[in-house]
């Protein structure tokens, strides 16, 4: 997809959001009707006008056909995202250490690093650093199972 097309879609979504935001201010109650509602409308009008102007400019003048390149290596990009989401999902039940002990080497290998000794030492170093600095010195409470 071209950058121009995605930009237009984003601007259209922002304009729609501005309209909905403006309308939603009517549902504010009590003192918020004369205060917060006006602020929300102020923001909605401002962003709506600017986005409409930008969309009009894009429709009338923008002739570029540059592709939107989010990443040049999708498997690694998606892999990191999936690993992050899994890390977050198990964070509360398993705590930091076990997921991190798996996350760091898996992502390093996923990104093409093959020096297993360096990966192992780095993982151990990070875990030891978090344990000593965050748990022992700073008393940060981490969830779930900790060493």
């Amino acid at each position, binding site marked *: 997809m071209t*950058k121009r097309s995605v930009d237009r879609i984003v601007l259209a979504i922002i304009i729609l959001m501005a309209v909905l935001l403006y309308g939603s201010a009517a549902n504010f109650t009590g003192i918020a009707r004369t205060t*917060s509602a006006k602020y929300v409308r102020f923001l909605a009008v401002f962003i709506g006008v*600017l986005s409409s102007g*930008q969309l009009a400019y894009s429709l009338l003048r923008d002739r570029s056909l540059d592709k939107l390149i989010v990443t040049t290596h*999708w498997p690694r990009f998606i892999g990191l995202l999936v690993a992050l989401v899994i890390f977050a999902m198990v964070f509360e039940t398993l705590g930091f250490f076990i997921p991190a002990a798996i996350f760091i080497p898996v992502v390093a290998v996923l990104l093409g690093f093959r020096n297993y000794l360096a990966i192992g030492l780095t993982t151990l170093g990070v875990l030891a650093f978090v344990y000593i600095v965050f748990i022992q010195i700073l008393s940060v409470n981490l969830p779930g199972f900790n060493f």
Partner: protein
Amino acid sequence: MFEYLAIVFSLSSLLTIAIGTVAGVAIGGMPGLTATMAVGLLVPFTYTMDPTAGLMLLGGIYCGAMYGGSIPAILLNTPGTPAAVATAIEGYPMSQQGRAGLALKVSVTASYVGGTFSTLILLLFAPLLARQALAFGPAETFLLALMGLAGIISIADENSSLIKALIAGLLGMIIAVIGTDDMSGSLRYTMGMIELIDGIDFMPALIGLFSMIQMLELAGMRQKSIDTSALDKTQKSEPMPRGIAKHIALGSGTGTVIGILPGEGATIAAFISYNFSKRISKMKELFGKGNPEGIAAAEAGNNGCVGGSLVPTLTLGIPGNSVAAALMGAFIIHGMIPGPDLFTEYANRTYPFILSLFVANGVFLIVGLTFAPYLARIALIPPAIMVPVVSAFAVLGSYALNNAVFDVYLMIGFALFGLILKKLGYSLEALILGLILGPIAEGGFTQGMIIGKGSPWIFFESNIAKVMWVIIALLLVPPLISYLKMVRQNAAGVRSS
């Protein structure tokens, strides 16, 4: 003042500042990692620390990272931070000529002078400016936030258009509306999610927008090979060139002033200082081929931003740049709301923090003069090992502040959303400034409307308000004129082709 000096010069404080500064130099020296990323990532962890020590640690990281970026820029032609790009233009050719020793010496000296000068300005002027803020009512507070928004416009560069920078800023302000309405106590746009009752905390957003995005970009990037030949080359020992002080002074002044302007960052400061230096230099022809004057101005400029950016942050609650925004987060989580209170009620924390920046500058001066060539090797750490480590800290940092996994999802969401916006040319700095300025603007606006009995004239009544409108106009009009000129030129170009 002596009691504040005693706090700074205690053994534990000196150790904290030294650790922060050395860590900052190392982080700044790693391409892809920035001061904002490091400070943003570590703010949640200072929550359980003594506030003064926590702030000193972050201040050290800020100072160290600003300087650290110049080391790989000079030795490997790989700027550790965007602010060190101008340094690479002059520093790398010098390294290839066997003059890296001089380039590194000029860089660390200029960084030290720039950082120290701007901290001195912060120390002298911040309390005065904060006192002026006592005269601000809700209307002026709202206008202050608008001024910050107007400053966003100047963030716009070749990658992010002026209108898009404003849209991003407003988007941040709209995201800040989510949560409980302070006026009525009712919930707004929470979609029934209890996690959103207190609104969207800007720390997960900051970590997502400035740390995780960089990791996602690095993960999807093909690794470039770095030329390490300069590291092994025999380097000459040279004295500081004559007349360099003029360029350091120019960079220090320019960086400090640019740092004070909301939204202006170290990269802009470094480039503007570099261009000024080029203009006044008697050796213009050497620029681009290894001129130490360019390094002096650029490095003094980007380090001058440190103290400068903290002036509006600490006094008015308007962050001078994204690192200052992250630091402001640290003040807020310790219950220290920027403004006059920082210099009265919390003076025993604020002044030691400011004084610690002088020490941090001294620490990186020593580190730079002694270990710079060895530190350049940090830039050779492969991104494949850096990405999982920083990502793990990003997850930990997002979680640690509120002990909420929801914040981790928010961080990932902001990273993805921000990456697309960034690719489309929207300014992420503007987005985060909008998110921070949102509650300030809303508080000022709603209270102003109550005082003005629903009339918007309250925002134009006082003399301070009138002056602020003039400043907003001055901030808006010149970039708007140049933007319109650019649009016209583009249109003429399209017609002629």
